[in-house]
């Protein structure tokens, strides 16, 4: 993959060198530009707003929840307020144990987002690092990439099953499994992007002025590749949440009475015929989060990816 666009900004620096000064001049208006463009895109705006609301809901779950998410009641399977037999006390209804679905959703989103962020963070960090190193140093490149090929052959679900078998049920093995399964993808994409960056003239220039490998890697490579990598990671986020929910649906994730969206959908499965809201509501929330994450990721790519800019 070669990047021929002249829009790739020179390596930004904080030490006040010539390149740094140029980059600051160049990137400040560019940043304002992409943010404006992003907010102009209505779908992206809506997606970002939804994500923001979900994240805020998750953060402020203890304040917003109307009930204790783990506390059961005698009113089981109450439908949502707008349906017949529904009532205002549980406006999204109750589940099979008589627990308030709205409150469980807030706490559930907390756990689901946490799994998503942690796994993507883990996978993204190690994946990008390995990919960048691979591109930077040709000697270790085959070793890293063949290891990635091996990792790529483990499906996330299988890996999660194995980890749960060893570590016991919980969200930690799920995060690790999802994180590990994100590493090879991130590494490949990061390597691709980094190879393009490595062919740029400013890398040669950096070498010519006698920058050390560490300086080259840190100041020139990482800073120029990071925005494209972040786009990929943001796209990966929705997918990770979905696999995380799948694993919880299979009973591998959080332990009861903790709520997790996939687990809530799973618990409602047996009542699908009689009280569909128990499974449908968390499933719709998963759908909305994943859709928003993907739309937002797409929009970010549209405005940030230098190759897509005119």
């Amino acid at each position: 993959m070669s990047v021929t666009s002249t829009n790739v900004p020179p390596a930004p620096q904080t030490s006040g060198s010539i390149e740094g000064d140029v980059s600051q001049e160049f990137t400040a208006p560019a940043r304002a530009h992409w943010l404006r463009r992003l907010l102009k895109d209505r779908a992206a705006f809506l997606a970002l707003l939804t994500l923001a609301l979900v994240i805020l809901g998750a953060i402020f779950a203890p304040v917003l929840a109307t009930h204790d998410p783990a506390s059961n009641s005698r009113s089981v399977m109450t439908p949502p307020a707008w349906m017949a037999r529904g009532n205002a006390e549980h406006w999204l209804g109750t589940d099979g144990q008589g627990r308030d679905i709205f409150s469980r959703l807030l706490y559930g989103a907390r756990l689901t987002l946490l799994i998503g962020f942690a796994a993507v963070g883990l996978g993204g960090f190690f994946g990008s690092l390995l990919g960048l190193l691979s591109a930077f140093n040709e000697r270790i490149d085959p070793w890293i990439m063949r290891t990635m090929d091996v990792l790529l052959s483990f499906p996330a679900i299988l890996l999660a099953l194995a980890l749960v078998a060893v570590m016991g049920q919980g969200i930690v093995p799920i995060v690790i499994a999802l994180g590990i399964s994100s590493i090879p993808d991130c590494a490949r994409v990061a390597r691709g992007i980094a190879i393009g960056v490595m062919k740029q003239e400013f890398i040669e220039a950096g070498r010519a002025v006698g920058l050390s490998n560490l300086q080259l890697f840190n100041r020139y490579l990482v800073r120029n590749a990071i925005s494209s990598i972040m786009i990929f990671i943001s796209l990966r986020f929705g997918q990770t949440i979905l696999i995380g929910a799948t694993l919880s649906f299979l009973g591998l994730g959080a332990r009861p009475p903790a709520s997790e969206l996939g687990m809530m959908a799973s618990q409602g499965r047996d009542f699908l015929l009689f009280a569909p809201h128990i499974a449908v509501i968390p499933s719709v929330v998963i759908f909305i989060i994943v859709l928003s994450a993907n739309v937002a990721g797409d929009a970010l790519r549209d405005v940030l990816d230098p190759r897509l800019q005119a």
Partner: protein
Amino acid sequence: MTPTPIKRAGFGLAAAMALALPVAAQELTIIRAQDSNHYDPPRTTAQSGAEIIFMLSDTIVGLAEDMKTIEPLLASSWDVSDDALTYTFKIRDDVSFCDGKPMTAEDVAWSLNRWQDPETKSPVRWRMGDVKSITAPDTTTVVYELNAPHSELLYQLAQSFGSVIDKDTYEVLGKDFGVTGFNGTGPFCWESWTPRDKVVMTRHDGYNWGPANYENRGPAQVEKVTWQIVPEAATRTVALLTGQGDISPYIPFIGYSTLRAAPNINVIKSESAFWTNYMGFKITKDLVGDVKVRQAINLAVNQEAMAEDLFFGEVEPAYSYVSSGALDYDTTLDETLLKYDPEKAAALLDEAGWVLNSDGKREKDGKVMEPLAISFTGEWQQTSEAVQADLLKVGIELQIEPMDSTVYWGKSATDEFEMYVMGYPYISAGDALNLYFRSANIPTPNRMNWNDPETDELLVAGSQATNEADRAAAYAKVLHKVHDNAVWLPIYHRPMQIGYSTKLAPFEAHNIYGAGLYKGLQLTFIE
């Protein structure tokens, strides 16, 4: 490997029936939840195994729907010696296997001997008692000799494990017996098995030796039975409602009210099902080692609310470990049972030194009361979560680790938990107690680690009693003992409920080992 003789017999039967019966094919589809690992009588303890084996083969004696009356089956009569050590069975001479071969006392003795043979590795070998020998002195006599009396012997011989199978077919099929083929004397004959999908069986035309509790003693009134597996509970309900299946004993509790309201479905219920769901305590673990803690947990859980809300009033809340209708249940136990009383539970915990800390959790010597319960997923997980919510109200933070049944069985044989979940079928109090409370049965099924020499002695005394009063007295003592020690948290007694199409004539549900249709002789379509 293909069981050619059986298949040929099957095809022959089908051809014969096609000629004999001009009316529409009497094909029945039974919907169930899960498969068995195989269908070899002495080696499978699965309820889903027993369901099939009862229809494909016969036992030496049968059991009536009341779960108390022993009926003649392959044996037309029997004598028990005064010392209760020798049972002499008179075997019918008009019985034949599905492949047409006549069945003799030799086959009965061989099948029973195979059950007790250590090489068979039957997990339920103990049900046979302390066997001295099982012999067939002539073609119509089987002599079953014991080293010590075994008061429940006839009940145990009515279970599917002692089903009589054909030795020749077994020798041909070996380990594949009950996998690729089967040859028994039951009302139906093996046609095919597709694991995790279905078992298909066809009518045994010559069958006329059914147990006397059936009006129709044979042959079966339906030509072909397909046991179809539908793993999803809601889908089973829909399949029955839409006529994709004719009968299902595996309807989720939530579905029964819908089925009762449906014009095309009938539901039968039998209370004497003798199936109890409970959570057991690993009493050798610190957290639940104190009897007061176990009693408190019993008092803190509201079984009645669970029965109503979680199981839609379809089950009977349980406070005793065996159903009060079971043989040898002691009614004096009723006054001592621990019923819902959260205040008393809290007081008991205080008394035991487990006091509420600032977080509202019970704590003692810096240790928080958070016992770990392992659980199956699905319905059991719901049950555990309801228990968890009830216990939280008295400051006990139950940890639940739900797992798939394939993992659960192995895990439940370890020491890595404080509580576990289990549901089990039994035919009498003695059956239940001998299964769970013998010290020899540690680690499974005695997962509680209940190790009490007096219990062992009493169980032996009950098992070896030669009269009913002695037997009942011995078992009553054990019942009191284990209930006083609160080694279990009983949850509910599960009735046998079967939903069936109104196209079928009404019938009575059976309860043996959870096999609600038993021999299937009663099943018939209304003309």
